[in-house]
């Protein structure tokens, strides 16, 4: 059985049935165009509709050990629809090139001479089943194809948005297994993925592992030996953090966050917030070699940010928090036990409450009341953040706003800026994720402000029918939050005296007058594929 049984070139079709292992797929069986097309890893589990397949019926058989199945028919559609804008090869609008988002390791063996063999897991957007990985030792070298097989496909969700809204429509994500061959350990290589239509991705840099002790298969900056055997913070042979017991997996990225929450916070700050946030990361468009999904986010919110007062009592609530980490100007020397309205430095609370042994593993966040600079949150772009929107308005006291605030600041800790790779514009309509101010706290905004912050509403509300009538919140609000995938079309800001330019996104009018940006052309950015996991080990910086 084929699912779907009808579609367009490049569509991924799943095959279900028995005895698929070690079978091959024959396309156009019995026709002059008969050919074997690539299936999945070690079997005939899926295929991509050939890019040059004409509209009409195409008989398919599976063959194994010289025996062929009965033909089944796949029909290439001639019609168009929201997800199938014609994208013929060589046409004005082509099917998008593959894009590599991540390279991780399935297995590696190190040779005494300092070389390494690796089986790589290469994944990204719009990989055909049968896409081939090539490797270059240097950017100037010609790419050399390596043994490659497709492993999994994650079909993307568009919430009914028409594909003319996208400059880089992502139909699906795909993963492949690729063999690097024997190479010097630690060598930087460049990978390219070539789809069946010969369109190639841009080169993706990857540093091969240096040795067995430091290998980090999933690229989360937690070495495999920590994720499997535990983390010995002090080097005394005693395991201080049993990461495996916390669900760490060396083949899935893990993010650990300690979030200390002050007493008397009014906004939701319980499992109604943390569970959807964990699910947001699990739903990331990231494929893992095993069954585990997405990224594994662990939030330890069991603690409070406390200090002991001169009377020996624990105090776990402070009127104002000065986020003095990450370059903000220190505010004199606040004294939380003498100030009339107690003020405290973030660094003071961290020193007292964050276990030092967690430093290489965990991000540290404090959920407080006011922040000295009045902002609803802040991050050091590495391993520390503060959440402080509790008293900026009653409309913010929702699980959705709490999830958005946390996802936003954790996103900063993972290297994301408001427009993805830049901060300009921070209210980017086509950056379809919670890093943009068009998404952060959207449901809490004054309707007049919401009207000035256009975005693609079906993506924000994760609902094909989402609309905001006169700025009102769409009634079917849920708790699905996301980072951007880098799909949306570029916007062209009208610059006087010219009047031409982008006026809307997904039918929502753009108010350019409220957007403080130096750019005329505003591009989306792929957040998920750009996360940086170095923060905790580099102590608050993203680069060594």
């Amino acid at each position: 059985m084929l699912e779907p049984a009808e579609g367009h070139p490049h569509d991924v079709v799943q095959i279900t049935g028995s005895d698929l292992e070690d079978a091959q797929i024959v396309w156009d069986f019995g026709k002059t165009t008969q050919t074997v097309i690539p299936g999945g890893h070690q079997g005939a589990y899926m295929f991509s509709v050939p890019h040059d397949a004409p509209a009409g019926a195409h008989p398919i058989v599976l063959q194994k050990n010289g025996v062929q199945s009965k033909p089944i028919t796949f029909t290439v559609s001639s019609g168009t629809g929201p997800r199938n804008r014609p994208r013929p090869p060589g046409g004005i609008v082509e099917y998008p090139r593959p894009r590599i988002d991540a390279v991780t390791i399935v297995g590696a063996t190190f040779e005494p001479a300092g070389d390494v063999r690796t089986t790589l897991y290469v994944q990204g957007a719009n990989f055909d089943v049968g896409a081939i990985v090539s490797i270059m030792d240097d950017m100037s070298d010609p790419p050399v194809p390596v043994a490659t097989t497709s492993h999994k496909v994650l079909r993307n969700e568009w919430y009914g948005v028409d594909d003319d809204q996208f400059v880089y429509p992502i139909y699906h994500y795909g993963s492949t297994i690729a063999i690097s061959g024997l190479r010097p350990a630690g060598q930087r290589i460049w990978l390219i993925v070539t789809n069946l239509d010969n369109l190639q991705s841009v080169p993706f840099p990857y540093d091969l592992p240096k040795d067995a002790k430091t290998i980090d298969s999933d690229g989360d900056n937690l070495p495999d030996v920590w994720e499997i055997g535990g983390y010995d913070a002090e080097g005394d042979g005693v395991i201080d953090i049993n990461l495996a017991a916390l669900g760490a997996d060396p083949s899935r990225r893990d993010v650990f966050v300690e979030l200390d929450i002050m007493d008397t916070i009014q906004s939701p700050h319980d499992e109604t917030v943390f569970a959807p946030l964990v699910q947001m990361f699990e739903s990331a468009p990231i494929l893992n070699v095993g069954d585990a999904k997405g990224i594994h986010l662990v939030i330890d919110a069991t603690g409070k940010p406390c200090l002991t007062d001169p009377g020996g009592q624990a105090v776990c609530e402070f009127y104002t928090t000065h986020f003095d980490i990450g370059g903000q100007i220190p505010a004199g020397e606040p004294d939380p036990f003498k100030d009339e309205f107690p003020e405290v430095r973030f660094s003071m609370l961290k020193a007292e409450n964050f276990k030092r042994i967690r430093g290489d593993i965990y991000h540290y966040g404090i959920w407080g009341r006011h922040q000295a600079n009045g902002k609803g949150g802040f991050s050091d772009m590495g391993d520390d953040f503060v959440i402080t929107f509790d008293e900026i308005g009653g409309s913010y006291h929702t699980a959705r706003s709490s999830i958005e605030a946390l996802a936003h600041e954790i996103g900063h800790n993972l290297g994301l800026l408001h427009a993805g790779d830049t901060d300009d514009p921070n209210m980017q309509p086509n950056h379809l994720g919670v890093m943009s101010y068009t998404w952060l706290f959207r449901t809490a905004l004054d309707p007049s402000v919401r009207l000035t912050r256009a975005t693609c509403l079906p993506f924000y509300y994760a609902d094909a029918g989402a609309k905001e009538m006169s700025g009102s919140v769409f009634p079917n609000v849920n708790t699905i939050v996301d980072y951007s995938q880098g799909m949306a079309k570029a916007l062209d800001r009208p610059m006087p005296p010219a009047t031409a330019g982008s006026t809307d996104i997904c039918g929502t009018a753009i108010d350019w007058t409220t957007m403080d940006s130096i750019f005329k052309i505003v591009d989306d950015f792929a957040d998920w594929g750009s996360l940086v996991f170095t923060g905790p080990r580099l102590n608050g910086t993203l680069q060594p």
Partner: protein
Amino acid sequence: MGAIALALGAGCNSPERQAAAAARDASEVAATPEQKQLWQDAADKGDAPGLQSVPIPQEPVIQRRPSQAPGAQPKPQPPQSVTITPGVRSELRVVLYPEDPFERYTGPARVTKVEQNGDRIEVQLPPGASGTPRTLALLVRISSSPLPVKVGEMVDVAYQVRRDPQVPEDAIGIRNSAGAGVVHVIQGGNVLVQAVIPLFGLNVRQVDNQPGAPVQFIGASLKPIDLTMGQTSLVEGATARVISSTVPSGKPVPGLNEGAPFTLNVMVWRVP
């Protein structure tokens, strides 16, 4: 040669042999001669470590469908009931917002409830644009004392919350007929900030865009007073504190551009 070396160095069911077998399986189903050969070479050379552990997915093709936790409450819900923590000397906090939280008001209001030993004060604001009465409740304590007010008494209140979460524009305060009270003002913008401090007849402004520069308090009968961040001083019979005054540091720093670059955060109070 590579295959022989591999066979000598590995047992029958060693991971290396299993990986080589898996690479041969991949060669068997490869769709092109080139890929068949590459997989065969990988098998022969032992170049596919870990391949034997790659599972054949139960669901090779799945749909990305972000999900929400069951029971999650996305819509506004009443704030969790909070009280002033024992031992807290001073407090000012909104615990009940008017129906339209963004409609601002500064002026007289009638006290309708006094609860929690005087810590919680509820006032009725005049009807707003919708024509319905508006209720505001505050937790208030100043220097370990409740603000002395009685039900039915008129007080002055300031209620203003920001419309844009990234640009502070907040003023929350209450003052009784005897002049005791407290107000918290947070203001932000793209240029040097100046703000009205309601209920106390004061204005405050940033006068210099150098980090650490003082801010200036101005009153009707007051010679301008400069206070630096973290400084507390008497100003026209009340106590004023500059909690924070931020200006851009000059060189843009990635990640530190969270909302308005200029912010000013001050509190003014007068003890009962």
